[in-house]
């Protein structure tokens, strides 16, 4: 029995505070580094100082003799089984065995009685390396004769994707205007505050337990089993509070996880690993830096006819989920604008840099940056308004894209209108004083995706005799509010209060298998599962209530801890009484279960065809900037967004997601850049990897966020995602605003002050060397030999 959304929700749609807010506000919440166990040892990892080298020999004997050191392991202590995400891209090892492929690649691990000893012992491990030629640039790595990183990839291609829909050549031939541009984006890190941390225990019964800060414990569980060569049932992954996810390694098993459990086996003690923040910023899991070639054909009236997109991704030393990373840009080029003919080629290339994986938005924000920047240029050349050209090409609900995305709800037109309204666009565009500009950027995301074998989510609700509910899912709360929103769904369906719901953290021994938290899937997929599970429990209780109250099952109402006959509310009993009746009198323990999968077929990655997600979320973002033309400094003075989240189950949490993602977008547009010179990270520190702080965001009065409500029929209470989509267009909005402010189009990220300064000079025809100075900025950064001093 499903429950249709209606205006009279008791809990859904209200700004309920996050359930774990109080435990975090008091400092009680235990993150992995806050856990201490009796006899616990401390682990440290030895990392390669070379970007590419063979390992000839490792001698840990001196380290082992240091007082306080309990165990040292190397790659050879593991079975040598490669693990990873897809059969064709599994190239991770727990610790390197034959060679290292980037500065930071893990080579050995130590467990000691304290961190000081472990650190000291790292210096005593003798590793003999044979340095190999290294390659850092993706295009160089693809050339014949380039150093080969992996045996299976002769030309260093880590993943490829290519597909075509429609007839792009014909589309270009019929276009009145053709535009081709090259864009470049930079390596980005998640920047969460919690460094990776875990505790591993391999106990006397051969059971392996890992407490860890993970978004996808189930994926970690499987990968651990694979890499350790043991049955998965021997492994238990227990999720601790996650101090920020954004997919930095919490999606996968990392070296520390493997080492913690193996060191535990050898030392017979629990072993804790915590990365330092410079480790976190030096290792992999970055957002792919992309080179993006985009050619677009349009008619004179702005109708888009065809697009050809080519991507070269600097993937770094390992694959991670690279296959998916390469599929997404071409796939998502189909949204939010209608493009009937698309051709797409992408290569993800192995290089001796830190590797790339998912990061809030994955490879989509980069594409939106390129596509929406170019769209503004096309509009300008055709003499069209940037809003009009977007409205003209806006996809509508019910459409099917050339690559098979079926749009259910898709309020993109409304997003555009609301963003324009909220920002005061009409009063500002073209009317702002010099060096101030307003720009728009748009994008779309998915609400979870059917992208691998197991994509379903399941839930179980256990009803207790005191009227409380224990909600069990496989989804992790990483701060986004899953704990709260899923509890709200259960509370709404069961007619109890939020404080009656307890939300289980993931424990692979006990919670249902689940891919975890990524791709903005939790509200939709797990939310649906929770709704089904709650309805299941509710139905069981309703039947009992109907009998007791001598009424029709369909007349039973559950609300505010009461269960009563709808048209005769006096006939009723409390929720708790009903449960006790069921349990004690009838001997029935009430448990509800539900499972959700979208039912769509898997994407055919060879052709790129398939409906990736049950629901898509469009967004529009407007940014206003002010430039100091003599220093190039950019201030974002306003930011307004409209995002179709279907229905905001909790508007306060949706706002937090949307605005948080927006500020991450500002960071990527203007400040963030993980700089490597010859493979070495120069700025592995929050001081120099610059993320926005309070003084970098607009004043509250100049920030707006609008939920476009479309009530998706497949989403729980009509909800779709809110975690990633709203930020897809932010970078483009900022880039377009900078163009309006300066008249200079910047096609490489970040749009830093030095680029702006020299761009302006070049545009003004001042300083004959300005262009060279602008271009030299990139090459300066790739020269070696600079010290800390400046």
């Amino acid at each position: 029995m499903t429950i249709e959304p209606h205006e009279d929700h008791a809990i859904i749609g209200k700004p309920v505070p996050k359930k774990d807010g109080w435990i975090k506000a008091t400092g009680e919440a235990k993150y992995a580094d806050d856990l201490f166990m009796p006899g616990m040892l401390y682990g440290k990892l030895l990392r390669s100082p070379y970007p590419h080298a063979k390992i000839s020999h490792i001698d840990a004997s001196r380290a082992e003799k240091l007082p306080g050191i309990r165990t040292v392991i190397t790659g050879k202590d593991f079975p040598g089984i490669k693990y990873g995400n897809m059969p064709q891209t599994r190239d991770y090892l727990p610790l390197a065995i034959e060679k290292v492929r980037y500065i930071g690649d893990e080579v050995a691990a130590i467990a000691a009685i304290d961190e000081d000893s472990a650190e000291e012992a790292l210096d005593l491990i003798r590793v003999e390396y044979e340095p190999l030629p290294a390659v850092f640039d993706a295009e160089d790595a693809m050339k014949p004769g380039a150093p080969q990183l992996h045996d299976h990839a002769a030309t260093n291609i880590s993943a490829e994707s290519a597909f075509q829909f429609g007839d792009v050549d014909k589309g270009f031939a019929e276009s009145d205007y053709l535009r081709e541009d090259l864009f470049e984006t930079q390596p980005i890190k998640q920047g969460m505050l919690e460094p990776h941390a875990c505790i591993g225990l391999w106990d006397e019964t051969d059971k392996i337990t890992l407490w860890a800060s993970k978004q996808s414990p189930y994926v970690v569980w499987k990968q651990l089993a694979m890499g350790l060569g043991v049955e998965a049932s021997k492994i238990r992954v227990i999720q601790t509070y996650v101090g920020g996810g954004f997919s930095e390694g919490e999606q996968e098993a990392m070296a520390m996880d493997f080492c913690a459990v193996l060191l535990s086996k050898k030392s017979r003690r629990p072993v804790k690993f915590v990365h330092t923040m410079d480790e976190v910023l030096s290792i992999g899991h970055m957002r792919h830096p992309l080179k993006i070639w985009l050619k677009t054909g349009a008619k004179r009236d702005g109708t888009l006819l065809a697009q050809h997109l080519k991507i070269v991704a600097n993937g770094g030393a390992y694959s991670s989920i690279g296959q998916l990373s390469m599929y997404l840009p071409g796939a998502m080029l189909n949204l939010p604008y209608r493009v009937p003919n698309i051709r797409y080629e992408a290569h993800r290339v192995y290089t001796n840099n830190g590797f790339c994986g998912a990061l809030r938005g994955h490879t989509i924000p980069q594409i939106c940056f390129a596509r929406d920047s170019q769209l503004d240029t096309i509009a300008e050349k055709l003499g069209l308004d940037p809003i009009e050209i977007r409205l003209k090409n806006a996809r509508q609900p019910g459409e099917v894209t050339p690559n098979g995305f079926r749009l259910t709800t898709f309020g993109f037109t409304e997003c555009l209108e609301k963003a324009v309204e909220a920002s005061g666009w009409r009063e500002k565009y073209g009317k702002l004083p010099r060096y101030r500009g307003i720009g728009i950027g748009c994008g779309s995301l998915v609400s979870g995706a059917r992208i691998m074998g197991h994509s379903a989510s399941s839930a179980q609700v256990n009803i207790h005799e005191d009227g409380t509910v224990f909600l069990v899912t496989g989804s992790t709360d990483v701060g986004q509010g899953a704990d709260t929103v899923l509890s709200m769904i259960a509370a709404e369906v069961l007619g109890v209060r939020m404080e009656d719901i307890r939300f289980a953290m993931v424990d692979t021994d006990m919670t249902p298998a689940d891919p975890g938290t990524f791709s903005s899937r939790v509200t939709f997929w797990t939310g649906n599962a929770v709704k089904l599970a709650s309805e299941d429990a509710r139905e069981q209780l309703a039947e009992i209530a109907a009998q007791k109250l001598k009424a029709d099952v369909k007349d039973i109402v559950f609300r505010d801890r009461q269960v009563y006959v709808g048209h005769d509310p006096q006939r009723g009993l409390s929720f708790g009484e009903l449960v006790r009746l069921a349990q004690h009198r009838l001997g029935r323990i009430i448990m509800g279960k539900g499972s959700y999968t979208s039912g769509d077929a898997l994407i055919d990655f060879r052709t790129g065809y398939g409906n990736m997600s049950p629901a898509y979320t469009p967004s529009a973002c407007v940014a206003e900037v002010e430039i100091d033309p003599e220093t190039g400094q950019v201030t974002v003075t306003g930011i307004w967004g409209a995002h179709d989240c279907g229905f905001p189950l909790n508007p306060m949490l949706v706002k937090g997601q949307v605005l948080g993602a927006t500020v991450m977008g500002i960071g990527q547009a203007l400040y963030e850049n993980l700089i490597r010179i010859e493979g070495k990270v120069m700025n592995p520190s929050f001081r120099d990897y610059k993320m926005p702080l309070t003084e970098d965001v607009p004043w509250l009065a100049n920030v707006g966020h609008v939920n476009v409500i479309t009530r998706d029929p497949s989403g729980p209470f009509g909800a779709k995602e809110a975690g990633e989509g709203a930020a897809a267009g932010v970078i483009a909005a900022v880039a377009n605003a900078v163009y309006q402010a300066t008249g200079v189009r910047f096609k490489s990220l970040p749009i830093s002050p030095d680029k702006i300064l020299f761009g302006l000079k070049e545009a003004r025809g001042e300083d004959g060397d300005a262009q060279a100075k602008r271009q030299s900025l990139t090459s300066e950064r790739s020269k070696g030999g600079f010290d800390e001093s400046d």
Partner: protein
Amino acid sequence: MSYLRRLPRFEYFAPQSVAAVCNALADYPGEARLLAGGTDLVLQMRRREIAPRYVIGLKGLSELAFIREQADGHLAIGAMTTIQAIESSPVIRKRYGLLSQTAGEMGSPEIRQVATIGGNLAGALPCADFPPALIVLGAKVKLQSKQEERLVPLEDFFLRFEQTVARRDELLTEIYLCTPPPFSGGVYLKFHDRHSMDMTTTGVCAFVTLDKERRLFRDVKIALGSSAPVPLRAKKAEAALRGRAFSEDALEESASLACEEAEPRSSWRASRDFRLELIRTLTKRAIRGAWEKAVAASDRGRA
């Protein structure tokens, strides 16, 4: 190849007097480091850039935490005075507004709470913010050792990256500022990508003394930070303005000279060309701002 670590082992002591500190420095030449606020040294130790055998903690030296107007009107600031204390000091706000402005823009409240003026100077990092401001104010520092104490003009204090003229047995104890001349004012402008917290990419400080009757630059001091291995006084840039009236041409000329005198490096943080652009712009703006302050001071004097 090391990542951040636990702090290295050291012996710690906290002498209760300046004399005791000087004795300790003499006893452990080259093996002891002075720990002031810790916001630089603790980090350097964590990175293993420094691993001293002895750490001499100075936080207990209340005799070095003071802001004192001397009988002759000069100001003495103890080396252990925190940035926060400098920023909020009424006498500094009133008489040395430039200094409290500079202090207020350094780091975060948490950093300012413990970081000290002495540490900022003795650390001799090119990106330090106090040196340019203090140099244009004509500051002198007192160095004390077991044998002697001496005064060094701050503009002569810095030798090279992370090195000053202070001998390893000397403690920087006090900073002296003369009474600023009447009708004067100063501005420190620094540039960094974000709007706060960043290391200074380039900083320019200007201090202008107005010739009130003739409405000319009576005196100008210009100091550059993060523009050379050490904080730099741009003397040619100053000379170009002395005795002149305020004009855009004069500013332009002065700024060009400042660019010539500076020796900014290219690094992954910022290119030399960009820093030169910033020096040009910030010099003009700093001089303009200081001029306006000096004029305002003279207007107040008139009233």
